[in-house]
């Protein structure tokens, strides 16, 4: 198991947000983390890459306890794609991407020509080669998200965490990102954990799901088995169900809208 979490209790100040979480994620899987607002999704992510120290419990990634690792060592095995990024200074996208390599570099180094070439290749793979020299702050939300994804790729860590990458994206871009992540996971054998608001994206792209409610895991496992009406309603409330379209595609829809009853 690539990521193992044992009896994790974590939170901010005195009040824990997560209570005694136990879970595992296997290697090479794209795993969705679903839950209502405030259920602890982001807190969980922060614990995995040790940005937040847990009150109790252990996080083990690639058979190493992250509490024992230095920041550099953690960054070599876990990368993080944030929801948004902003710098006070105007860097180009390429410069942003190159920052992903810091965990591999010596303290006094700067990126070499080979590093730059490697970064370019990733840009082409992700599809941002056209604007990679533009200023990062000037891009649209979707473009920024792709750049940060490219940065995480450049970081080349086997576990990738994506914190609500879709929240600022339009419909088309949401699917674009998801298929890109799916492709990356398959091609490189990474393990990815992605927090989502839309269960449909989990349904369509993710191998496994973990469902959180108020700091507890109420269900986890392969998508086909775990993402069902019962669990969905347990997580998000009554007004949700899975339906099948006429062409056989499964979709998650609200239950009380007239056309669905």
């Amino acid at each position, binding site marked *: 198991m690539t990521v193992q979490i044992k009896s994790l209790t974590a939170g901010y100040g005195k009040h824990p947000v997560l209570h005694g979480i136990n879970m595992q994620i296997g290697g090479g899987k794209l795993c969705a983390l679903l839950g209502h607002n405030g259920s602890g999704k982001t807190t969980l992510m*922060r614990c995995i*890459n040790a*940005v937040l120290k847990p009150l109790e419990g252990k996080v083990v990634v690639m058979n190493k306890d992250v509490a024992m690792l*230095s*920041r*550099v060592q*953690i*960054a*070599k095995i*876990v*990368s*993080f794609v*944030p929801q948004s*990024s*902003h*710098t*006070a*200074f*105007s*860097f*180009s996208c390429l*410069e942003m991407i190159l*920052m*992903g390599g*810091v*965990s591999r570099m010596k*303290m*006094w*180094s*700067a*990126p070499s020509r080979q590093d730059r070439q490697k970064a370019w290749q990733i840009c082409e793979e992700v599809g941002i080669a056209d604007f990679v020299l533009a*200023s990062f*702050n*000037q*891009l*649209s*939300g979707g473009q920024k998200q792709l750049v940060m994804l490219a940065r995480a790729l450049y*970081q080349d860590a086997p576990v990738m965490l994506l914190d609500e990458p879709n929240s*600022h994206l339009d419909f088309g871009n949401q699917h674009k990102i998801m298929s890109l992540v799916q492709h990356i996971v398959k091609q490189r054998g990474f393990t990815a954990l992605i927090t989502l608001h839309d269960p449909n994206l989990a349904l369509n792209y993710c191998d496994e799901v973990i469902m959180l409610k108020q700091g507890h895991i109420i269900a986890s496992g392969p998508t086909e088995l775990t993402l069902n009406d019962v669990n969905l309603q347990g997580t998000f409330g009554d007004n949700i169900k899975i339906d099948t379209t006429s062409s056989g595609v499964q979709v998650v829809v609200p239950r009380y809208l007239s056309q669905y009853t």
Partner: protein
Amino acid sequence: MNKKVWLSLAMLLMTAIVSSLSIGRYAIGLKEVSGILLHAVGVDGYFSTPTIEMQSVFWNIRLPRIIMSFVVGSGISIAGATFQGVFRNPLASPDILGVTFGASFGAALAIVFVTQVTMGIQGCAFIFGILAVLSTYFLGSRSWDKSAAVLVIAGIAVSAVFQAGLSILMYISDPYDQLAKIYFWTMGSFQVASWAKVQITLPIVIIGTALLCIFSWRLNIMTLDEEEALSLGINIFKWRLFYIVISTLIVASAVAAVGSIHWLGLIVPHIARYLVGAEHKRLVPVTAILGGTFLVLMDTMARSILTTEIPISIITSIFGAPFLGYLIISRRGGALEGDRAN
């Protein structure tokens, strides 16, 4: 690296050095300088042999002063660029943690109570400059909030304390000599630049500047959100301390030697960003060279335009403040770019 920019920088630097060496209240022009330099390596006859007085003025007064202003200019500027990166704030300056007010207080303390000996004042200024930053760091680290913003607020508090102390010292000082001395010190001056001062200040600033240049690429990452930087693999707390310590040592020794020089640490990094962009591996060394060059030019003005000495901060303010205004209005390049609206 843009070859054109480097070339222009080099030319600017050369022009600054050559003109500063040949301008001053004592009549030593370009011809005489060449004569002096050649004479020093034993070659005579190409230009008129320089008089003993000319040589003395050149080697003892003018040259150490030019070296001092370059060293101080690059030190303060590079510290400014580093602080802007560490605190993720384009408006940060080297004074942000209180080193300048601490040093001013230390100098005033020495002037009023202890001694008129220059080395004593310099030493006291240095110690109190460091003390101020230590207090700021100590105060800031007591907070539950580990962010850089807390340090800035702590810096404001500590600066206020030392500023109050400075005011008290100015109040009780002898108005005939001590008060004027304190006031002139707070405006900054290279009037008393000498080889002795150069010997003390140069090593610290050069080593510090070299360190900041070597580790300059990391600053790019320090400018990101703290969580992002941590996730990328940088222990931002250790590195923040490192950058603060090195920068403070540079600024404290510079300020202790020549007094406080306003605006330079804030303006030069912005000019450099406008020329070569915000990427720190390029920005930091360029800032150092640019800062040294500017201060050499400005000090040449300060010591030559009038018979009397103009305090250097007046010149840096006259040129610095309007330039900042220009940057704000034009919003081109550099650090003051915002996001495009989505």
